[in-house]
């Protein structure tokens, strides 16, 4: 069993619980124990792109300090990696870890943390550098490997037509991305290992509309239509995602998208970890489909395919 520090983030604890529940179970099946950070705060959501906006980097760096503390207290040994499921958390943590490679910036940020020492609830030391944020997809590809995933498959997803969708946060910009920004293959490879039929999705690296979903539903509804109509026309039965925000927009905004375009058929949206839990034949609670977190219920499709 490999023990890896795990940063949950708010989404997978609440509206995207199905992602973490399935992901943690899948990881365990593959010999990886995800050990939640004893203390963590918001990842910082959207890294600030201003080079002098140090305040906005406190949140992600504080989380990286908590990974350091896990090593100091012996929860993990010499472990400089931290795993996330949420693409936004991964992106923000990694961006911040690269940002403070500039020693002058790290120095200023650490001066701020230095002053917390005397307070209850403050961190006891600054960030030493070197913590690496990993998206769980990287754990599957680089630490576990596709072959081992294929070996664990008990119920191949034969005949299930899946269209991968990446969004942007795990592949762009190049320094942060975990795969080719224009032509990623990591989701396809995992789904192939599960025995699913991959449907070409030309829009798989397009923008989902992100946080416009709060105040400009119209923009997101339009994008959701664009992002779903091509995979549907190509015959997809389910869209597979790796990001809670993309998932929310692709799934829940179908309602608004259908009001704009009556030709849009409903299509379920699922996390790759849910399909892994199904293919591994884990306990049904780890499929994460019974938590009322899906807008389009995937259960009828899964039942029709004898997968549920």
């Amino acid at each position, binding site marked *: 069993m490999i023990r890896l520090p795990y940063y949950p983030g*708010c989404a997978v*604890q*609440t*509206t995207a619980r199905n992602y973490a529940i399935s992901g943690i179970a899948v990881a365990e099946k593959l010999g990886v124990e995800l050990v939640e950070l004893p*203390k*963590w*705060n*918001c990842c*910082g*959501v959207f890294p600030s792109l201003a080079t002098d906006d140090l*305040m*906005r980097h*406190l*949140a992600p760096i*504080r989380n990286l300090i908590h990974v350091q503390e896990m090593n100091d207290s012996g929860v993990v040994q010499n472990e400089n990696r931290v795993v996330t499921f949420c693409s936004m958390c991964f992106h923000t943590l990694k961006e911040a870890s690269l940002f403070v490679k500039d020693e002058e910036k790290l120095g200023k940020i650490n001066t*701020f943390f230095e*002053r*917390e020492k005397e*307070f*209850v*609830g*403050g961190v006891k030391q600054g960030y030493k550098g070197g913590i690496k944020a990993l998206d769980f997809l990287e754990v599957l590809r680089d630490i576990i490997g596709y072959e081992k995933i294929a070996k664990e498959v008990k119920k191949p997803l034969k005949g299930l037509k899946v269209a991968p969708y990446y969004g942007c946060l795990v592949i762009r910009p190049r320094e942060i991305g975990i795969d080719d920004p224009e032509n990623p293959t990591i989701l396809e490879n995992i789904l192939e290992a599960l025995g699913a039929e991959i449907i070409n999705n030309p829009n798989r690296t397009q923008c989902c509309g992100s946080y416009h979903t709060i105040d400009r539903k119209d923009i997101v509804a339009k994008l959701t239509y664009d992002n779903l109509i091509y995979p549907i026309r190509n015959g997809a039965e389910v869209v597979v995602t790796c990001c809670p925000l993309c998932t929310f927009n692709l799934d829940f905004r179908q309602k608004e998208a259908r009001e704009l375009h009556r030709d849009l058929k409903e299509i379920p949206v699922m996390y790759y970890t849910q399909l892994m839990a199904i293919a591994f034949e884990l306990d049904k609670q780890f499929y994460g489909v019974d938590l009322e977190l899906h807008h389009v219920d995937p259960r009828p499709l899964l039942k029709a395919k004898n997968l549920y």
Partner: protein
Amino acid sequence: MEIKQKKEKKEEIVRIYIMGREYKVPAGLTIMKAMEYAGYRFIRGCGCRGGFCGGCATVYRVKGDYKLRMALACQKTVEDGMYTSQIPFTPAEKPIYNLEELSPSVNVFLEYYPEIAKCVSCNTCTKACPQDLEVMDYVQAAIRGDIQEVAELSFDCIMCGLCAMRCPTEIVPYNVALLARRLYGKYVMPKAKHVEERIKEIESGKFDEEIRRLKETSMNNLKEMYEKREIEPE
């Protein structure tokens, strides 16, 4: 010799500045007592004098140190060169809600206090807390809708308001925490079964006769009964 030392100590005087004005007061007094010594009379910003009510929030700085520090006037003793000012009231945001109509959902905090999403986790609120609470951590727990965590981390909050005064993103941590403890008590915390049973017993009139008898007993007999009462072994 000992007596002389004591006497010297008693006469030790420190110089403090109350809202900018200089006063010489005996060392060892709390800020509150020092202000009263200097002639101030509290009609506001003073409650229990025991560090529990949160009424006497104070901002101070000590000469030679650039940091603004926070304390309760009834707890913090004066230091030489201390500049102090009282914050008896914090005009902070406090939405009106009906607890009966709320549900303990993950979005309840974001609905009533959407500004919590702006938290940059700078921990300034934590530094301000005179109760040594992990304020930022409970604000973070509120963002992710963890009612129990907010309620537990904020349990010793005395609502002094200093966290809200210091937050650079204008969050009102202490009111967020109050909502959490209300929701926790009403919807999350397991109900105490023995209390519910006892309430039923009271409502069914089980103790009415006993209470009636006690009411009719004379004071002297009551005292005697009290003295002879059975005391549960510890």
